[in-house]
């Protein structure tokens, strides 16, 4: 049975419906971006016309970094709930009794997180751009924010950073036994790729289209590899029973026909949990 986009879509629809009905998730998704929006706006508006170019550079760099924190952090918490949460509410086993493949389940769940997270990141970026053009008093700020490499980096890095966070979060979720632990670990593990972004934002590397594309490609490859690792970590048996799957050895013997009574002698065995 091959990969099915129909099954993937069914998982994605379910995820989005669940978010819609969960006030906590909606509140988290709404409040955190507001925090990420307010701080850069204040920074940009405080830069006067006579501020030196190096200070403007740093401020704009920090703005880009903050804007990329949203797609990196927001999905981590939700993704790390994805599998362990299903386990905790007892819905994982019914899901796994269907023809659903693990890749379809994981990708469906990943898309369910990436779509709102990246959407929010792009909206934040658009709001910053518009506000800067309308209200910023320093022309250099507007010019830097509108630079091609910066915009390209934002467009490319937002989904890729979100992808990284989601994969790490889901990887942790497939192994965790407690939702709280999974969410804390997921948040922490989304931080490393931001270090790369920080280097670019603070001009340790000079931003250029080539650099943005190279970093994006590296992140893309890392995301794909990570997704494959997470798929491999998704062990049905372990998730359902808590025990690792064992390889089957070949057995043989007779099969009794239906309609006959058989009394089978005891051969021993130990308790089943």
């Amino acid at each position: 049975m091959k990969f099915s986009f129909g099954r993937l879509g069914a998982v994605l629809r379910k995820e989005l419906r669940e978010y819609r009905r969960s006030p906590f998730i909606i509140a988290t998704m709404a409040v955190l971006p507001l925090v990420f929006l307010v701080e850069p706006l204040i920074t940009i508006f405080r830069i006067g016309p006579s501020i030196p170019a190096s200070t403007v550079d740093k401020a704009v760099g920090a703005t880009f970094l903050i804007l990329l924190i949203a797609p990196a952090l927001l999905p981590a918490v939700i993704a790390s709930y994805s599998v362990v949460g299903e386990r905790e509410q007892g819905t994982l086993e019914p899901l796994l009794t269907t023809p659903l493949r693990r890749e379809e389940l994981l990708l469906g769940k990943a898309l369910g997180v990436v779509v709102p997270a990246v959407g929010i990141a792009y909206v934040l970026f658009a709001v910053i751009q518009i506000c800067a053009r309308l209200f910023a008093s320093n022309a250099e700020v507007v010019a830097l924010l509108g630079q091609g490499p910066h915009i390209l980096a934002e467009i490319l890095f937002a989904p890729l950073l979100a992808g990284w966070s989601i994969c790490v979060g889901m990887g942790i979720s497939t192994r965790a036994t407690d939702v709280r632990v999974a969410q804390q670990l997921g948040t922490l593990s989304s931080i490393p790729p931001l270090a790369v972004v920080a280097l670019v934002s603070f001009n340790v590397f000079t931003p250029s289209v080539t650099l943005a594309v190279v970093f994006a490609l590296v992140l893309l490859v890392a995301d794909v590899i990570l997704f494959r690792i997470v798929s491999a970590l998704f062990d049905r048996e372990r998730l359902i029973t808590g025990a690792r799957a064992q390889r089957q050895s070949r057995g043989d013997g007779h099969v009794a026909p239906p309609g006959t009574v058989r009394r089978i002698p005891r051969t021993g065995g130990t308790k089943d949990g």
Partner: protein
Amino acid sequence: MTGAHGVDPSATPPALIVDHLTKQFGQRTAFQDVSFTVASGEVFGFLGPNGAGKTTTVRTLGTLIAPTSGSATVAGIPLTSVNGPEIRQRISIMPENPGVYNRLTVIENLELFAGLYGQRNSGPRITKALEAVNLTARGRDLCGSLSKGLRQRVGLARALLNDPAVMFLDEPTSGLDPVAAREVHDLIIGLRERGVTVFLTTHRLEEAERLCDRVAILNTTLRLVGRPDELREQLFSRSLVVETLAPLVAPDDVFNSTEGVESWRPDGASSYVLSVVDPRTIAPHVTRALVAAGADVVSISESRHSLEDVYLQLINDDPEASQR
């Protein structure tokens, strides 16, 4: 041979063939060397004490976990990890905990699973499944607002969505009130009439006796497989229960001289249990002997052993089970 409910096991290939199947978790054995066959259209009861390995067997046959050794064929498909999705497309499993999404409505829950079974126009199927479990009026309610019994019904409706060839029901009436449990029983009877093979795990022995063509009793290893009446005959000698108005003066003389009575024992002041070969043939002889002895006969009836008696007899013989 025709089964108890018109099922001819030889006419179609078996729905389940389990051959020396064993599952171990490290040093711990969940079930061992289990072999049985379930005919297509049969309702097969799977009984056993807590921790006997029933749920693990269902999970193994449902491709959720891999067996350690042995082999099986489920709905005509060999049980291998490669065949997992194909097997799961043809079966359905209702776990003991129905596991519904509380933030979704009943219909949204069913839409999800219809999608997972690859059904594009799922509306009519969902309507049919809701009708089957008598839940049509609650379709737009959030599952979180439903009682446990109603959530159980959502789980059953979900299991009906893909028209399964084999349906595994793990304690389907657990937590249901008698009326709801009766509705589930009727549903299982309806499934059998439609030719669906039902693999029923239950602790309710009267449920198994009422619904199942055959039952298996598992306690890590399989102890017994057969029709409930066959099991009773095999484990218990057939007997007549005689009640007289007053105690017999010389019961030895009456019963030992009566043809067909193998042995007897008192069962109260004026009641006697007689071991006989064929209760229907021997009862008239016993009645005549009692009347001839001047006894006032209140009743003579065949002693009926329930499936519960069979189960308890087997489990009481098993010291391991009694420690669970």
